[in-house]
C-alpha cells in the first residue's frame, strides 16, 4: 500500500513538473499578436518589407516595428481579427514580439552576409513561411553549429572558426 502511494505521488510530481515546463516553454514564446504569415505573403509582401534589418543591410533581420504595421493597419481597417495590432498602432506602443531565433552570444551571424550578399533564400533557415498561418512560436529549423558548418562546406565557403566565433 505504501509502495503504491509512493508511486502515485512520484508520478503526480513528474506530471506536475512536465506540465509546468511545457507551460513555461509555450508561454514564453506566445506572440502578442496572432500574426498570419501566409495571408501577408499572399498579399504580395516581401520578407524584407517587414523585417527591415535585411533591406537595411544590418546584421539582424529584426522584428517589425509598430510603424511598419501602421502603414496598413490604420483606423480605417475594420477587420475584427486585426484588432490586437490596431490597439498597438493606436496606442503607438511597440509590439512586444517574442524572439524565436536566437544566436548564442559567442557567435557572430550577419543577415547582411547571408541574405544581402550571398543571396540565400530566407526559407533555408526559417522554413517556407508562405504556408504558415499560426504565429511563430518555435524554430522551423533547429539552428545548430553542425547545420551552419554543413551548409558552409556544401557552399564551399570558409569553415574557419574565427569567421563566425567571436
Amino acid at each position: 500500500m505504501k509502495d503504491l502511494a509512493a508511486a502515485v505521488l512520484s508520478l503526480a510530481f513528474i506530471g506536475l513538473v512536465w506540465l509546468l515546463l511545457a507551460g513555461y516553454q509555450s508561454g514564453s514564446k506566445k506572440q502578442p499578436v496572432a500574426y498570419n504569415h501566409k495571408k501577408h505573403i499572399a498579399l504580395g509582401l516581401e520578407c524584407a518589407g517587414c523585417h527591415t534589418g535585411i533591406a537595411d543591410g544590418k546584421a539582424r533581420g529584426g522584428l517589425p516595428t509598430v510603424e511598419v504595421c501602421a502603414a496598413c493597419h490604420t483606423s480605417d481597417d475594420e477587420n475584427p481579427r486585426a484588432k490586437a495590432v490596431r490597439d498597438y498602432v493606436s496606442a503607438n506602443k511597440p509590439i512586444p514580439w517574442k524572439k524565436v531565433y536566437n544566436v548564442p552570444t559567442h557567435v557572430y551571424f550577419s543577415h547582411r552576409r547571408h541574405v544581402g550578399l550571398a543571396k540565400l533564400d530566407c526559407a533555408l533557415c526559417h522554413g517556407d513561411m508562405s504556408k504558415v498561418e499560426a504565429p511563430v512560436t518555435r524554430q522551423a529549423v533547429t539552428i545548430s553549429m553542425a547545420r551552419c558548418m554543413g551548409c558552409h562546406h556544401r557552399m564551399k565557403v570558409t569553415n574557419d572558426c574565427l569567421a563566425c566565433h567571436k
Partner: protein
Amino acid sequence: MESLTTSRNGFLRGLLGTLGVFLLSGIGKAWGTAPGDAGHGKRPLKPGEHRWGMVIDLDKCTGCGSCVVACSTENNLALGNPQEAAMGRIIRWLKILPSQEGEFPAPKQRLLPMPCQQCDTPPCTKVCPVYATFRNEEGIVGQVYSRCIGCRYCLNACPYTCKDFNWKAPVWPKEMQASFNPDVSIRPKGVVEKCLFCHHRLQRAKEEAVAEGRPLRENDYQPACAEICPAKAIVFGDLNNNDSDAANLSKDPRAFHLLEELGAEPKVTYLKEGA
C-alpha cells in the same frame, strides 16, 4: 694509388654526408608532423592568401600607451583592480614591457609593446586538447572561448606570456557597460583569452569589400593598436603582399623577432632601437 684513395675517401665522405642529410631531414619531417599536431600547426597557405603580420618600430614608439587603451576598449577588457594587479591577474592583450639599463645618473628605459606574436608555428596551439586555439588560413592564431576548457596548457606553452586566464568573471563600472563592442564577446570565468589581431575587423572589412564588389585593400583591415598609434610605430599589413609596408619593413636590416631561437616564427617583427 694515393689519388684513388683520396677519391675513395671523398666518395665515402660524400656518401656519409648524403646519408646524414637524408636522415636528418627525415627526423626533421617526423618532428614537423608529430602526432597530435595534425591541423594544429603550420599549414601551407594557398596562393593569393593573406598572411597578416605586424611591424613595431621601437625607434618610433614613445611608450605612450595609446595602443594598450585602444586594445582594451576594442576588445572589452575589464579594468581590473589593485588586488588583481598584485596577483598579476590583470588581463591586457597588448602590454608594454619596460626594461631598465644602467643606474642613476644615466638610466636608460626601454619600452616594448607586446601583443600576441601570432606565431607561424605556435607552441600554444600544439598543446590544446580541444582545438580551442589554432592557427587559421590567414595566419591568425585564434582562440574560441566557448570551446576552451580552461586547462591553461597553452598559457604555459606560450614563450611570450601573451595568453591570459580569466580567474573570475570580468566586472566593469556601470557607466562602461553600455559601451561594449558587440563584435567581441564577453569572456566568462575560466577561459583563456588572447590578442586575435582584431580579427572581427577583418570580418567586417571582408564583408564591406564583397558588398562593394572589390578585393580587400591593404588598409581596409587595421587592428585597433595600429590604427591609434600616434607615432605610427605599429605598421600592420599582409606579409604575402610584397608591396605592403609591413612586408617591406619586416625585411629591414633592423628587424628582429623576440626569442627567435625558439623557432616559433612570430609574425610580429620589431625594428631595433638606436641602430
